[in-house]
C-alpha cells in the first residue's frame, strides 16, 4: 500500500507529460474493466507498450480499476446482455460471431462486452479529466504538498524511505 502511494506521488510529482499520464489511466481503465484473460487485453497491452505513455500510471491504474470492476461486474453483465440482445445490433453481432477473429475476442460474453463498452464510453472523458486534474495539481498543490506538515511527517517516516527508493527507478514516460 505504501509502495503504491509512493508510486502515485512519484508519477504525479514527476516531469512526465500530464497527457501521457492521463492516457495511461484511460488504458488502465479499459484493461481493468475487461476480464483479465480476455484477448482484448493483449491488444490493449500492445497499445500501451507502443504508444508513449506512463507505464507506472498504467500499472497502478490497472490494479485500481480491476478492483472497481470486481464490484461493477453485475452492472457490466447487464449492460453487455442488453447490448448483445439489442435487436438493431443483431446483424452486426451475428456477422462478428461468424468471424474467427472476433470470436477469439470473446465479445459475446456479457461481462467482456459490458466492461469494454463502459471502458470505451469513459475513455475520453477520463483522459480529459485526469489531464486537467494533474495540471491543476502541479500548478496549485505540488509546492504546497511538498511544504505541508503532513508531507514533512511522511518524509520522516518509513514511507519516505520507500518513496526515495522508487524515486530512483527508471520509470516514467520513457
Amino acid at each position: 500500500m505504501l509502495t503504491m502511494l509512493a508510486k502515485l506521488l512519484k508519477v504525479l510529482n514527476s516531469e512526465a507529460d500530464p497527457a501521457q499520464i492521463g492516457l495511461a489511466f484511460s488504458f488502465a481503465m479499459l484493461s481493468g474493466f475487461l476480464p483479465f484473460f480476455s484477448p482484448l487485453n493483449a491488444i490493449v497491452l500492445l497499445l500501451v507498450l507502443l504508444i508513449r505513455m506512463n507505464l507506472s500510471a498504467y500499472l497502478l491504474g490497472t490494479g485500481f480499476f480491476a478492483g472497481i470492476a470486481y464490484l461493477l461486474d453485475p452492472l457490466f453483465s447487464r449492460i453487455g446482455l442488453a447490448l448483445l440482445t439489442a435487436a438493431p445490433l443483431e446483424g452486426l453481432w451475428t456477422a462478428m460471431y461468424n468471424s474467427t477473429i472476433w470470436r477469439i475476442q470473446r465479445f459475446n460474453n456479457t461481462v467482456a462486452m459490458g466492461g469494454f463498452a463502459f471502458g470505451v464510453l469513459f475513455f475520453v472523458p477520463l483522459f480529459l479529466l485526469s489531464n486537467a486534474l494533474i495540471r491543476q495539481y502541479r500548478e496549485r498543490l505540488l509546492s504546497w504538498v511538498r511544504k505541508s506538515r503532513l508531507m514533512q511527517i511522511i518524509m520522516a517516516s518509513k514511507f519516505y524511505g520507500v518513496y526515495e527508493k522508487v524515486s530512483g527507478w527508471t520509470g516514467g514516460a520513457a
Partner: protein
Amino acid sequence: MKKWIRWQGLIAFVVVVCSVVVLWLFFLDGFVKRMVEQVGTSLAGAEVDLVAADVKLFPLGITLNGLQVTNPEEPALNSLECARIAFSLDSLNLLRRKVIVNEMAAEGVKFGTKRARPGRVPKPPEKKPGEKSSSLSLSFSMPDAKKILETEQLESPKLIEAASADLARGQDQWQKRMNELPDRTAIDAYKARIQKIKQSKKSGIAGLSGELGEVRTLTRDLEQELERLKKSRAAFSGDLSSAQKLIADMQESPMKDVRRLRDKYGISTTGLQNMSQALFGDSIGSWVRTSLLWYNRLQPVFQSTGEKKGDKQVVKPLRGRGVDVRFKESRPLPDFLITRTAVSAELDAGRLAGTIRNITPEQQVLGSPLTFSFSGEKLKTARALELDGSLNHVAPSKTEDTARFALQGYRAKDLALSGSKNLPITLQDGQLDLDLQTQKTGQALTGKLVVKVRDARLNAGSGNASGPLESAIRNSLSKVSQFTLTADLAGTPEKYDVKITSDLDRVLKDGVGRVVQEQSDRLEKELKAAVIAKTGKQLADLQKNYSGLLSMSSKFDDTQNQLNGLMKETTASSGAGKFNLRR
C-alpha cells in the same frame, strides 16, 4: 508522431507474449491433468486420477494416460479404468472457442478394477428413502412365540376381563331383583291366608259372600306375583342368552389373537407366489439404481444447460464470469463435440469394441443424437455380445433414450444372483442368454430384462439363516437345471417399480410350500399354548360368573312352582271351587 510512438514497445510486447506462451506451454500438461481430474471428479461424483497428460501442438492433440474413475459406492474399486485416451483437436475451431474432436480412441478400458488406495468420494450416494429392500419381506426363520408375546399386545385378555366385569355386574343386578321376588316369608304368608280361608265356618249368604271376597283378593295377589315373576324371567332369559354369546366370543378371542400373530410373523403359502421378487429383487434393483446413477451423472455430456432468449441462446459457461450469448452460425457447430470415439474394453467375457458417435451437450445444434454400438470380439466365455442404443436429445422437449444389451451363450461361473445375507444365491455354472431393452421417453422409463439359463447349477450358499425353510429353498434350487427370469421396469427415474417373475416361483412354491405350512402350524400351536396360558384363568373366572348367573334360573323355577301350587290350593280348598273365581 515520434513523441507518441515508441517502437521498442513492440519488442517488449513480443517478449511479454512469448514469455507467457512459453510458461503456459511449460505448465500446460500439468494444467490439463488437473483440469481432467477436477472436471472428472465433479462429473463422476468420485475421485478421478490421471497418471499423465501429454499435449502436442502440431498437430494439436492430447493423450491421457492411466485414467481411473473411483466407484462412488465402493471407493476401493474403480468403476472405470482406461489405459490410454488419445484425440486430436480442430485448431481453427478451438480459436472460435469450440472443442471439436473428430476422432478419439479409448484403449484398454476396464471395469471394476482394484485401486491402489480408496478413492475420495466428495458426496457419497444416498439410498432413496422410498426404496425398500425386497428381501426384507421374506423372513427365513419362524420367530419364537414367547418373543412375539413379549413385544405384541394381546387383545383377548382385555376383552375377557371386560366381559367378566360385565357378567359380575349383571349377576349383582339379578341378585337384587331376585330379592324383590316372593321369598319363603311371603309364601308362608300366602299359605297362612289360605289356611285361614279353609278354617272359616261362615254360613249364610253374607258369610259365603265374605269368604268369596277373601278368595278373590288372594287369587288376585297371587296372579300379580306370577305376572311379575314371568316378566322378570323373560328379561333374565334375554340376559342369559347374551351372556352365553359373550362366553362363546370370549372363548374364541384367544384364537383370534393366535391367528393374527401367526399371519403377521409366519410365512403364508400365498406369499410364496412371487419368491423370485424377494430373492432377486435387491440385486436387480441395485443394478437399476447404479445404471440410473451413471445415466444422471453423464447427462451433462449429452444435455445442454442453455436457455433461449429470443432467437439467441444464453449459455452458462463452466468457468469464468458472465454468460455467453450465442448467435446464429452460418455453419452451426456445438461448443463441444466428439464426432467419433472408438472404445476397446476388456471384460471378463472377452473384449468389447465399438464406437460412440456425436458426444455433445448440444444435440439440438448438431441435429444428430448420440449413438453407441458395441460388440464382443474374441469372446472367451460367451458366443455373442451386443450393446447398442441412442440418446436422442435433438428436440429437448421430446427426448428419447434407448439401449439394448444382448448376451448369448454366456458361460456363467459363480455369478451372484442374490446378494441376500440370509440366503445368497449363486449360479455356480450355467449357460446364460440375456436380453435387456430399456427406453426413456421424456420422464417415462420402461425396460424389460429376460434371462434364460440352461444347464444351471444353483447354490444357495451358507448364509446367516439355517432352518428348515432355507434347507427347503436350497434343496429346491439345487434341483433346478433351467429357468427363465423376467424383470419389467416401469415408472420414472425418480420413482420406478421392478416386477420380477420367474418359473422358479412354481418350483419354489412346490418345494417350500409344505415346509412353510408345517412351520406355520408349529408357530400357531406355540402361540395357542402361550396365549391360552395367559388367558386360561381369566376364562375360568368368566365361566364361574356365568355359572352363578345360570344358577339363578332354578330359583325362578322354584318360586313359580310354589306360586302355582298356592293358586291351585286357593281355588280348590276353599270350597268355592264351584264358583267362577276368575274376575
